[in-house]
């Protein structure tokens, strides 16, 4: 019989001294490693505060490999009381840290109230965080093989360029940048371990910045582009030979760009999952996505002519040639009753999207009950040869019975196809 006990496989002893000390607590059975694991879910400020609990806990937090600093945790009054600035505190924590490997370095510089905003724009807040400080912290994290970096700068109040050293971090696996500025458009980019890149409302300044960044990520697996700050870009080029998951959200309904002829180009041959929200079809062009399995598309409200709209949409759908699972939402503006102006136009036979020969499931979210909606559903049902299931979500309560009756009678190209109205 094999015996297994906590003492035999205790993996987290820190020192004999602390081990002896721990006998005071009934919870001495809980190894330091487990306590550090629990503390890793809390802001660094909280784990430092646990130093007050007992002598065993005094510097336990220095073994937590997760650093999570938020400016909102350091209220301005406190700074005056203690004469310690945010950067003094981050410096102290990073100097005392005993871990050899930093799992996560998270730095959130944001304000959550007007008072703080007022304070932060004054001169005395300079020591709050500077480019010099940021560079020091990122280098310190780099030297401890940091794996995840998550930086959030409220750029309305803090204009700090990201340090270039961030973009040559060999150990980095996951990088999230929010509201940041200073993505380099030249110079060295080398992120050989980076698997996931999340760019939330980042400012790129020039067209070359994003392609340059992506060119230095040889094993990137997932890319999320959640809005952009710039309005003057001409071409937004998302190109990566390795990404398998891509989500692109344009938050202002396709009107981000001042340039009316802007293009969004996507070249990602290995893509398996593709999500695009609020982008106009007439501006987006896709290189063939032959590996794509699942797509989640949210259309924009179109102001273009019907014919042009249909052409763009078909060209777009043509690129999704092998998709098996398709979700379409926001098919048209639900508030509009002006159905005759915006008709779904059926493609001619030769232009019929080859998508329809591979599609297995379709989800339509937000069925607006317009003529266009019905025509589109009719088209997909009639032509999708191997469709297994179509789900239609969010139908207006009053129209529901009518919609169900109407759609159920549509001819189905696939005998196996089932319909669900949710």
């Amino acid at each position: 019989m094999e015996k297994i006990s906590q003492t035999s496989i205790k993996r987290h002893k820190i020192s004999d001294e602390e081990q002896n000390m721990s006998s005071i607590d009934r919870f001495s059975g809980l190894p330091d490693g487990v306590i550090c694991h629990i503390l890793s879910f809390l802001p660094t400020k909280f784990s430092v505060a646990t130093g007050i609990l007992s002598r065993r806990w005094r510097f336990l937090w220095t073994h937590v490999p997760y650093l999570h600093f938020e400016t909102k945790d350091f209220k301005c009054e406190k700074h005056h009381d203690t004469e310690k600035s945010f950067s003094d505190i981050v410096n102290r924590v990073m100097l005392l840290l005993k871990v050899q490997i930093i799992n996560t370095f998270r730095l959130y510089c944001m304000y959550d109230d007007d008072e703080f905003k007022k304070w932060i724009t004054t001169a005395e807040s300079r020591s709050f965080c500077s480019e010099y400080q940021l560079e020091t912290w990122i280098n310190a994290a780099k030297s401890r093989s940091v794996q995840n970096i998550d930086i959030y700068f409220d750029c309305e109040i803090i204009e700090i360029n990201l340090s270039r050293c961030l973009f040559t971090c060999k150990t980095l696996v996951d990088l999230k940048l929010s509201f940041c500025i200073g993505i380099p458009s030249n110079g060295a980019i080398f992120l050989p371990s980076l698997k996931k890149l999340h760019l939330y409302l980042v400012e790129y300044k020039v067209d070359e910045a994003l392609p340059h960044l992506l060119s230095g990520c040889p094993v990137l697996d997932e890319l999320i582009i959640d809005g952009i700050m710039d309005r003057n870009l001409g071409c937004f080029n998302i190109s990566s030979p390795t990404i398998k998951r891509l989500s692109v959200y344009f938050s202002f309904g396709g009107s981000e760009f001042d340039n009316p002829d802007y293009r969004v180009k996507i070249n990602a041959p290995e893509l398996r999952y593709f999500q695009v929200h609020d982008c106009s079809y007439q501006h987006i062009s896709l290189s063939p996505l032959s590996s794509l399995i699942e797509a989640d598309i949210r259309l924009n409200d179109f102001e273009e002519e019907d014919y042009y709209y249909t052409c763009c949409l078909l060209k777009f759908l043509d690129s999704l040639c092998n998709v098996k699972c398709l979700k379409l939402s926001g098919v048209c503006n639900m508030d509009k009753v002006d159905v005759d102006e915006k008709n779904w136009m059926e493609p001619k036979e030769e232009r019929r999207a080859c998508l329809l020969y591979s599609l297995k499931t379709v989800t339509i979210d937000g069925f607006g009950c317009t003529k266009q909606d019905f025509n589109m559903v009719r088209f997909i049902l009639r032509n999708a040869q191997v469709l297994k299931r179509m789900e239609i979500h969010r139908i207006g309560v009053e129209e529901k019975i009518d919609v169900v009756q109407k759609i159920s009678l549509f001819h189905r190209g696939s005998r196996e196809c089932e319909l669900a109205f949710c």
Partner: protein
Amino acid sequence: MVTTDEKGPLTAKKKSVIIRSCDGDEFLVSESAAVLSTSLKKILEEKEDRLIHLSDIDNKTLAMVIAYLSTHADDGLSDDLKRSFDQEFVSGKEFDVLKYLVLATDTLQVTCLCYTVAKKMADIMKNKLVEWVRREFDIQNDYTPEAEAEIRRLDAWAWDDRQLEDD
């Protein structure tokens, strides 16, 4: 998974393991569930023994861990269902119960559950008073009043009205 199983040396047919808690209760667990614990997996790889005695885990805690392992070994359940099971699993549990769970999952190296439980404990600990944490973790304050005051002065930034504030 299926092909690996067919070729694998252990799973020519569905095997079970008996796990005994420190208070003597025995649980019959399918091997596919048991191996989700890295520690149990190692033991099963090294020994042919089908009876494993866990000298530090009580029957109540062990029953919970086994319920978790069995659910996660069930191929018939979707990932979504398993995720919601995880959330249900920790919700409403007393802090004391979670302490023994986190200890057991650390010992058995059930990484996923250990993560979920530790996170839940952290959520509960947030915004709690120093005395609450001392009580729940059974921590005896062994600072002299002077030493405690000194720490409070040095790391004053770490305390405010929301976190670990004293009564």
